[in-house]
């Protein structure tokens, strides 16, 4: 498996979150989250299903509103941002969805062109084609360019989803369960792709997962979300060197060698 070997700039925070709270009715999902993501860093957020991992990145990308707290992304206050500024900020953030969220009425080419032609005006046909082919090459799926999403496998859909976010050259990548529902070999391919994206596109990433293999392969730092708060943060081995039964249980139930 490829290991991530990139430089992290600890002097520059690309995401800074303080005291973030979010509830759905009476259910308090996030209860005071503090988080910093540094330039060039891959941060893995671990946690069981329903602990609010996806909610966290949806707040970062402005898809959900925080109830309380500060969320600063690339110098912008996401909680009090205007629609226009949010639109502008989102062009600098890539979001890879759990189910890929490919536009199923469009071919792979049209999927990739969709954000490109709407965000970069005055691009010529030749330039668009080159950019589409370049990102498809980066995810190793140039041959699928004219296929429909329904004709792709789960792993291919994930990679096309990542390619679609890369086409705008984002500074931050948010991965929501990148290896969920994939076989072990494809999981390794996706993990390698996440590391390659970091190296080739110089992104900072938050990777939401409950797959410890993915966490170990891609994360510079791991944060464990339990009861709406980060209970443990640090290197992978540091996080699991604990007597906390919940953390140990999480580790033991993952089939990691």
């Amino acid at each position: 498996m490829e290991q991530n070997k990139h430089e992290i700039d600890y002097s520059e925070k690309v995401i800074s979150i303080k005291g973030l709270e979010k509830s759905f009715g009476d259910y308090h999902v996030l209860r005071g989250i503090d988080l910093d993501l540094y330039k060039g860093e891959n941060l893995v957020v671990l946690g069981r299903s329903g602990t609010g991992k996806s909610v966290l990145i949806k707040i970062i990308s402005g898809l959900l509103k925080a109830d309380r707290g500060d969320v600063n992304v690339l110098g912008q206050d996401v909680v009090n941002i205007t629609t226009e500024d949010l639109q502008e900020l989102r062009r600098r953030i890539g979001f890879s969805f759990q189910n890929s969220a490919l536009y199923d009425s469009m071919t792979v080419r049209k999927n990739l062109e969709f954000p490109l032609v709407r965000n970069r005006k005055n691009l010529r046909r030749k330039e668009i084609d080159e950019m589409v082919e370049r990102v498809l090459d980066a995810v190793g799926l140039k041959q699928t360019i004219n296929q429909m999403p329904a004709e792709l496998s789960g792993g291919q859909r994930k990679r096309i989803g990542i390619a679609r976010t890369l086409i705008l050259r984002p500074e931050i990548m948010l991965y929501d369960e990148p290896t969920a529902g994939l076989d072990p070999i494809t999981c390794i391919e996706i993990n390698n792709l996440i590391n390659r994206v970091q190296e080739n596109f110089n992104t900072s990433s938050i990777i939401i997962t409950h797959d410890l293999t993915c966490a170990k392969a891609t994360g510079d730092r791991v944060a464990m979300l339990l009861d709406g708060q980060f209970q443990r943060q640090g290197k992978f081995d540091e996080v699991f060197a604990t007597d906390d039964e919940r953390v140990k249980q999480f580790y033991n139930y993952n089939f990691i060698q």
Partner: protein
Amino acid sequence: MDTKNSTSVLAANAKPPASRRFAKFFTDVYDVYRFIVRFFKEAFVPPYEFKELIKQCYEIGVRSFLLISVTGFIVGLIFTKQSRPSLLQFGATSWIPSLVSIAIMRALAPLVTALISAGRVGSSIGAEIGSMRVTEQIDAMEVSGTKPFNYLVCVRVLATTITIPILAIYNGLVAMLGGYLNVAVNEGTSFSTYVQQFFQPLGFIDFESSIIKSMVFGFTIGIVGSYKGWNSSSGTAGVGKAANSAVVTAMFLVFIEEVIIVQITGWFR
């Protein structure tokens, strides 16, 4: 089942109190109002999705032609056939073209077209946008810095508003042919005489009101389908519910609008 469990099941199935349902109704009305306002705010500012608008006009218009043709022809034929006995009693069968033209051009053509479109187009808009909502495709568009409301909602509402009046006029003309078949067989009237008699009682206001009415119907079908799809809840059941609800609500509103517009047109006639 023990008492505690049966109580909780009953509580879960119980309807919310009337006050909460009343409040929810007004919240829904406010949401619809905001949705419509958002349409007017976003539909006429860049980026304009001309290609998608033409595609949707084709989907809604051209693909409905066969259905509209068949129903229009049948409506014209049946209406003429059913009117004949009554007029025959008074020896007034020569009035059939005029009667058919007034009934079809003023009321039946826009109404039949709207009801067919509500079923065919409204449900497909609700299902399409709804499935995009539940599979996070709309979220994916939003986070990529594009404007899904413009691309999905504004385009479809504009397409229905533009296309349904054209379909309604076409429906009326086909219904005229259906009526002619009956008149030609029974009276042996020539086509040119029939057409002349058909258009004689119609004034500019009839065409004007029919077109405006069809535009209102088209807007309603588009906005209801889009609203239901845009706000559909998770899962395939949510998509089905959105599609179904889009049809029922649009049809209901079309009838209400028909009554109001007929009343208003009456004042100008």
